[in-house]
């Protein structure tokens, strides 16, 4: 009996080993054939999108879907790319890394020539590793973590990265606000917050800002910052830089800063987008707060207003930053395909590397890390409403 059991175990082990071997060797093969079959033989250009269409980040996924669909419809109505119509396949990654990998592999096996996605840095970093195997072109509309494009030559993004946000914030504080002394409040355990805080601090030297206090919290979801804020305010800063997410900024950081007697400027990064939904009843507390964002719907520039008008005509709502960057991502692929003269993935990657592009979220050239260097917008809260304040930075 014992022998039988061990035999059965050995047998099942063998099967599972063979299974593993087969699947791991099959993945790159199908990927390679996928990439090559997307070459000019087909009559249409096939794009893939992976985004959180359901789950807690579903609003992000919906924005991606709307932005991409609008761009593709416009392109097809104007005759397509290289006289071919564009077809898009949407896959739902639920904002989860495993689901993201499944979506990615599915799209690759369907033979798309480029993939747009995903929304968050977390999911995208897993996909970036997958591109190393098959050279698939991946363009994330909104993943800002610096590492996403480092060492992954076929990963691009339509947004600036976190270290750029930090330096833009310092530039805005020095030039537009005329600040001399700044303080930093950040979560040292969180890569987003710590990354932006570090680049902000480094940029402060460049712009002659004096960092008078630097305090950290245990996590991004702490509820009480009064001890750190008391120290910060005692140091007398002109500006407090606090790179946190909207769920902390609205109810805790801003009201506690004001309660501690500070009336000066609070400055944040793109994680502040959405604070309008988490504000406490007294909206006047949020006056004199600013944050760096990718795009502003009330930016008076012509490109932005044309985009807002056509988006509104299609969906009856105002596009947010993620919709705008997804829209730009489609046009970035179009520009690269036209530059390459073919829709073979490898050629599009070559064409996109270092490409210049002009879209609704700015005109830019992709830098060595496949990341746009473009102006950021600074948003201001006035009595609880989001207002476009200024356009900062970018090398055009």
């Amino acid at each position, binding site marked *: 009996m014992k022998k039988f059991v061990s035999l059965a175990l050995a047998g099942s082990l063998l099967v599972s080993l063979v299974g593993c071997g087969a699947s791991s060797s099959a993945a790159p093969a199908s990927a390679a054939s996928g990439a090559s079959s997307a070459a000019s033989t087909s009559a249409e250009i096939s794009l893939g999108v992976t985004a959180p269409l359901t789950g807690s980040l579903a609003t992000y996924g919906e924005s991606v879907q709307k932005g991409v669909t609008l761009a593709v419809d416009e392109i097809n109505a104007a005759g397509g790319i290289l006289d071919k119509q564009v077809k898009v396949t949407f896959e739902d990654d639920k904002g989860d890394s495993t689901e993201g990998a499944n979506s990615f592999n599915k799209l690759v096996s369907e033979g798309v020539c480029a993939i747009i996605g995903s929304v968050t840095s977390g999911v995208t970093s897993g996909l970036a590793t997958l591109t190393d195997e098959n050279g698939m072109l991946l363009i994330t509309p909104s993943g800002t973590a610096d590492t996403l494009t480092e060492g992954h030559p076929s990963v691009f993004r339509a947004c600036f990265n976190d270290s750029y946000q930090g330096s833009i914030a310092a530039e805005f504080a020095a030039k537009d606000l005329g600040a001399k002394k700044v303080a930093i409040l950040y979560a*040292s355990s969180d890569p987003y917050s710590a990354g932006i805080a570090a680049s902000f601090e480094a940029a402060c030297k460049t712009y002659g800002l004096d960092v008078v206090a630097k305090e950290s919290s*245990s996590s991004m979801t702490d509820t009480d910052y*009064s001890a750190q804020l*008391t120290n910060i305010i005692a140091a007398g800063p002109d500006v407090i830089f606090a790179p946190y997410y909207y769920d902390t900024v609205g*109810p805790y950081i801003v009201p506690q800063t004001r*309660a501690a007697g500070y009336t000066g400027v609070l400055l944040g990064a793109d994680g502040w987008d959405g604070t309008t939904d*988490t504000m406490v009843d007294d909206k006047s507390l949020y006056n004199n707060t600013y944050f760096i964002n990718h795009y502003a719907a009330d930016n008076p520039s012509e490109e932005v207003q044309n985009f807002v008008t056509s988006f509104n005509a299609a969906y009856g709502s105002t596009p947010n930053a993620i919709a705008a960057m997804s829209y730009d991502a489609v046009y970035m692929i179009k520009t690269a395909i036209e530059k390459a003269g073919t829709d073979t993935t490898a050629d599009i990657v070559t064409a996109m590397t270092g490409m210049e592009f002009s879209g609704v979220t700015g005109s830019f050239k992709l830098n060595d890390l496949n990341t746009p260097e473009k102006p950021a917008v600074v948003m201001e809260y006035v009595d609880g409403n989001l207002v476009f304040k200024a356009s900062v930075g970018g090398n055009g």
Partner: protein
Amino acid sequence: MNPFLLFIQQLVNGLRVGSIYALVALGYTMVYGIIRLINFAHGDFIMVGGYTLAFTVPLMVAAGMPAWLAVVAAIITCAITGILVEKLAYSPVRRRGNRMSSLITAIAMSLLLENGAQVLFGANPRGVGTLFTLPNIGVFSGTTLLTIVLGALVMIALQLFVNKTKMGRGMRAVSEDKEAATLMGVHVNRTIAITFAVGSALAAVASLMYCAQYNQVTTTMGSMLGLKAFVAAVLGGIGVVPGAMLGGILIGVVESLSKAYIGTLTGGVITSAFSDAIVFAILIVVLLVKPAGILGSNAGEKV
């Protein structure tokens, strides 16, 4: 700013946080004192109270009543949740298993409540609105003072309830010896259910003051809050009602002062981000040096 004034300000910050911990720790200690169960779901009862407030405050305001009266709804919801959790989970397990299985059940209930709330209300945080408009008195905010006063009142009321009423005498009897209490005509199951109802109602009061202070509820708000209040209850002496009050205030002050000064004292090696680690290090030290806590004596006399 003058360093002395800064120190006072940091003490006040500590009281602000500590007063909330104290209120939460009172509920912990009350339940532990009677049935010797560390109710890890207590923090999540506060979440249940918080969400009840978030939904009922707008109704109160619309009906022209003061917003804080929503606490009545929260107390009722929390008490019902407490009794349900006791009847459906703790009681069956207590009859069959040992104390360890009860403890694990408590952790399971905590996760169930958190994830259940996430399914019901979604992962996004929810605002609660303004509950009180209190003037500041000196360096103290009105809300902090009210929290401390409320904590003290609850503490006194609990002491009187446990020591002077018939039900309280029953609770103490159950706490000492369940079988003997049954023989003396104490309805043990009803006593335990009432203990849970009172403990959960305390969670509702704590959630009122938490929401007044922090204005937002999330489905996971109870976990860290509950853990820190647990440390507070152990520091003060778990099962001892005044100990919870003392422990809560102390933990708040230690947390605030460590956030404020640890960076300067250690030359930046340990930063304010370590404040949570310091709070939990206190738990280890207490368990090593004086396991019964500051006000705790030997286990037999605990109430």
